[in-house]
């Protein structure tokens, strides 16, 4: 056993039955502490199925083959209770649309302290202090005010910060971020990406970043796993995959991500 936080080996996922066509086939990768690993692909590539499998959130109809080890433990062998403990406690999750993950009728304070009170047997006041610190850590200017707010009173970028802060209060060792910036404006996206890098640098957490945006991957990932049609088509350090891609599909993805300068010359509509 190496020191990998998460070790995915020969993962296959079929929906509807063991004989159904594989949505994911033969996928293997590791996430090490302090490493940002990006799983990149277009719709239908299977990247979201892989992230759900890592979180054990696949529907019962999904048939899973291969193995997923988290800190050396086989997730398939974990009971529901144990898995619930790992999720949240050891694995923090950040999703695309924070509004659907935050409970609209509970204050931020309530949502951020609940896990601490339940999982860590903290007192309400200690949990509150920890939550305030977490909000400050993710760059929220007035943590007290945000604590007393409800989700709808916050902007999209602020909600995403709150969700990241909530994930961090339990000090997980792995963060899974599934399209964390896709619903955000570019300027806010830039802030959230900086924040993910900063958290990794500070905590040494591993980050599994699932995204369709090769531009985002190029800016933050240490290692890149490119998926297409349920398979890994290319996998390696970012310098290699982004700067010297070997597979035609990776080249096409990078090629389709036009820089603004390229777009200017490519357009040809504006002399």
């Amino acid at each position: 056993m190496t020191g990998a936080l998460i070790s995915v080996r020969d993962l296959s996922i079929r929906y509807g039955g063991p004989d159904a066509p594989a949505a994911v086939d033969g996928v293997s990768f590791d996430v090490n502490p302090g490493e940002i690993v990006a799983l990149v692909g277009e719709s239908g590539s299977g990247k979201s199925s892989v992230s759900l499998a890592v979180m054990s959130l696949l529907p019962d109809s999904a048939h899973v083959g291969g193995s997923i080890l988290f800190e050396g433990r086989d997730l398939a062998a974990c009971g529901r209770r144990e898995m619930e403990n790992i999720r949240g406690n050891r694995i923090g999750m950040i999703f695309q649309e924070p509004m659907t993950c935050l409970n609209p009728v509970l204050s931020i304070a309530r949502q951020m302290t609940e896990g601490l009170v339940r999982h860590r047997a903290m007192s309400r006041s200690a949990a509150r202090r920890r939550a305030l610190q977490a909000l400050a850590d993710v760059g929220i200017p007035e943590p007290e005010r945000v604590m007393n707010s409800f989700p709808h009173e916050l902007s999209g970028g602020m909600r995403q910060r709150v969700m990241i802060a909530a994930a961090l209060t339990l000090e997980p060792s792995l963060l899974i971020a599934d399209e964390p910036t896709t619903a955000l404006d570019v300027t806010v996206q830039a802030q959230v990406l900086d924040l993910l890098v900063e958290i990794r640098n500070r905590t040494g957490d591993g980050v599994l970043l699932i995204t369709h945006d090769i531009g985002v991957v190029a800016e933050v990932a240490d290692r890149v796993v490119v998926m297409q049609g349920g398979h890994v088509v290319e996998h390696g350090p970012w310098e290699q995959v982004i700067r010297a891609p070997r597979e035609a599909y990776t080249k096409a993805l990078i090629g389709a991500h036009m820089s603004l300068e390229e777009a200017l010359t490519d357009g040809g509509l504006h002399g």
Partner: protein
Amino acid sequence: MADQTPAPAIEVRDLTKSFRVNGRDVHALNGVSLAVGHAETLGIVGESGSGKSTLGRIVVGLETMSSGEILHEGTAISGVGRAERNARLAKCQMIFQDPYASLNPRMTIGRQIHETLRAHGSRQLAHNLATAAVLLERVGLPQDAAGRYPHEFSGGQRQRIAIARAISTGPSVIVADEAVSALDVSIREQILDLMAELKGTTSYLFISHDMAAVAKFCDRIAVMHKGRLVEQGTTRQIISAPQDPYTQSLLEAVPRIGRRR
């Protein structure tokens, strides 16, 4: 008019839109003035809440303005009768971000294009279906597309359908609101190429937060921030030499390959 320059296809002057929220007036648009020339493509960029979608919706008549003026070919639409106003608005079509939401799931594609043409006065079903077949072929869809339903198509194909429907009435102005934002990058390219190919004499208001798509597709760009127009110019000016600090920060935030955070 004294000079020879033709009036712009569409022009808005000092456009304001306010909503009343919790007893306070919120300005979604605050004194916006801009013009789109014939066969010109104007990109409207800005972040959520900048007012860019509200602007597009007002131009096609889906929303009303609080104050200001909209001119079609130099004629203020507030000054014309209802029939002429409707006829002028019929020359403005819209393409939305999510083509599935903008198509009727229970109607075949051919029928939906027929409905659009019928609303614009062409009532013969057989004739309209023939027109639909030609349009669908022009946007690169298979021949039997007219007889199929929206769910039978991929996201990119649905956007092709939405484009076919938008061009079916021969509009002079098309407002495309985040028309390629929900598509995978490879498909996005194809749809942008298709729109460029079909441009002809149509003027476009291309609303998007995707700077690269705007840079590729548009002749000029207008930058909006908090309901105001902060800067406008040719695409080259805005992308290569933005003047306003907000435009600069917007461009700086665009992810690029070759830079590390």
